[in-house]
């Protein structure tokens, strides 16, 4: 898959919507510059992750616990940085005023999702 499509998939996973071509091009440039090499196993995981956001979320979450320095995570991290340093996505990174209760509920909800995806991800990482 080309890096422009990768960027779009990553953007949907990280911030819930696809990014502009400009940001996708930036990701493509960054990947070229950083020369990230995936091992054979990582490549298989990556191919699966690029099939849909569900697998991407699971594999990233699984790797966060089993191999947090994986080169797959490095690619996701690059895209996260690119999204943050953009006018297009900055609001997804700047906190908003909220009630404490709202924050606590949100944290619990995110935590539950994170655990769910991590469990699936660990299984996938083990199986592949």
């Amino acid at each position, binding site marked *: 898959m080309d890096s422009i499509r990768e960027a779009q998939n990553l953007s949907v*996973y990280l911030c819930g919507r696809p990014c502009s071509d400009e940001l996708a091009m930036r990701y493509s440039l960054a990947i070229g510059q950083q020369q990230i090499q995936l091992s054979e196993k990582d490549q298989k995981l990556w191919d699966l992750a690029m099939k849909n956001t569900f697998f991407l979320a699971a594999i990233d979450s699984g790797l966060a616990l089993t191999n947090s320095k994986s080169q797959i995570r490095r690619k996701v991290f690059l895209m996260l940085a*690119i999204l943050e340093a953009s006018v297009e996505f900055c609001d997804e990174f700047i906190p908003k005023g909220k009630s404490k209760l709202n924050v606590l509920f949100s*944290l619990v909800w995110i935590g539950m999702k994170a655990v769910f995806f991590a469990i699936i991800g660990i299984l996938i990482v083990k199986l592949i």
Partner: protein
Amino acid sequence: MQDFDYIVVGSGATGAIAAKTLVERGKNVAVLDAGIWEEKYRNIIPDQDWLTIRKTDTNQHRYFLGDNFEGVVWEESRVGSQLTPPRNYLKQSVEELMPFVSETFFPFESLAKGGLGGGWGTGCFAFSTAELEKCGLNPTEIKKAYNQVSELIGISGQHDDSGPYSLGEIENAQAPISMEKSIAKVYSNYQKQKAALNKDGFFMGRSAIALLTQDLDDRQSCKKYDMEFWADKDKSAYRSWMTIDSLKAKPNFDYLPGWLVLSFQEVDGWVNITARNISDNSEQTFRCRQLVLAAGVLSTARIVLRSGNQMGIKLPVLCNPYSYMPTMQLAMLGNEPEQFKTGIGQAALFHDPNKTNFDVAQSALFSYRQLLLFKLAKETPLGFAFGRQTMKLLQSAFVIAGIHHPEVQGPDKWIKLEKSDNPLTGDTLTGEYLLSEKEKERMDWRETQYRKALRTLGCFPLKTIRTPQGGSIHYAGTLPFSDSDKSNSLSVDGKLNGYKNVWVADGSGFSYLPAKGLTLTLMANAANVCSKI
């Protein structure tokens, strides 16, 4: 060969003040400096606050991430993680020109115009009389020099409970900057719990910082744009290069960047200095009547050892152990982000268990925003999408306590210069830095006390991270002050023993390193040394 009356090597905190002091005394002075500089990002950062920039500047990725994505660091960074792409020039060329190899010590050096002072956190601390004496400094002279330096660089602060540990006897400080909400909340908790905390030896107050709250010459008072780690638009935070730039207008001053000083030799009342041009590698000799070394303690050590042909000789070294604790201040959860604030530490918490203002530990308290969220997301054990959401929710509640521990000399804290195949210098500095078991226990104990105090202040520590030795970026003690004239030591007025006209104005002489940031004292010492030569 070029001749000068006085040559100062280095334009960092100490070199700049050394040169300024000499120039004001009417001497003819040249600063010989590697002098690496950055122009790429400096001019594209808008003169606006962080929040506005984030929402409007379509070029922000250039300086926030770097044109080569150098600001997106994947590897564990050992030292200097606050260095953003616009500050990366501070470490440029250091590995090639000043190689340092060690398994246990990871110092951070600079060859930049303005030295490490181009990115320092501006925390200023006057050492107590006992601390100055243990360093080997003259308390009366240094306290006088503190006021001179404060006047020059502009220090803001307050004589509150932190006063004895930060402003000391400095009388000309500007009013402190208004506190951002999260630090103000910790401060108000301190006022409520003061009696109990003081009993345990904890004292909190406003930090003394070289950040203007009133205009000074061409520098403006801080606009609270929360961009201090990226830009110097209003020049409110003092950077050593500002002193160098202001000196350039003086007829008795020359700034000579682009030279790596290798060694010196005294010949017939002159000091001959051999330097290498860092762009074309050519070698040149400069000559002066008096040489002032202010190249930072490790670089000064290289020059001194090389000049004396002392390969393999061990010199002592000091570096404050540093740990930091990310904490959660639950009371701040969900708080609206502030448009105008500063990311510079505005409050400090000192631990002085004996209440003697000696053997004190120091912690600056910071909020987290300027350095962007993606770096925090990397620290969570979550998939990045969940890490982003979690950190976005928690960010307003983060208070980070950076703890410096006081440091004494030890048998396993040393550096030495060895021959190597380095094509530019022919040598490499090596070193070791190991704390004794007793020192580690003392750190453990200190950190436990801090965790307790922070909880009392409403900040719940999440973890304690110890940086590798070198991480504090506070170095000293390679050529300790000595009453005798043994080699590789300094007389109390800063003369390098064994030489007639060579002086050292950086922290090489300090035999002790209080936990309080040393840079104000470095500058005061440089002013003091150069007031006498």
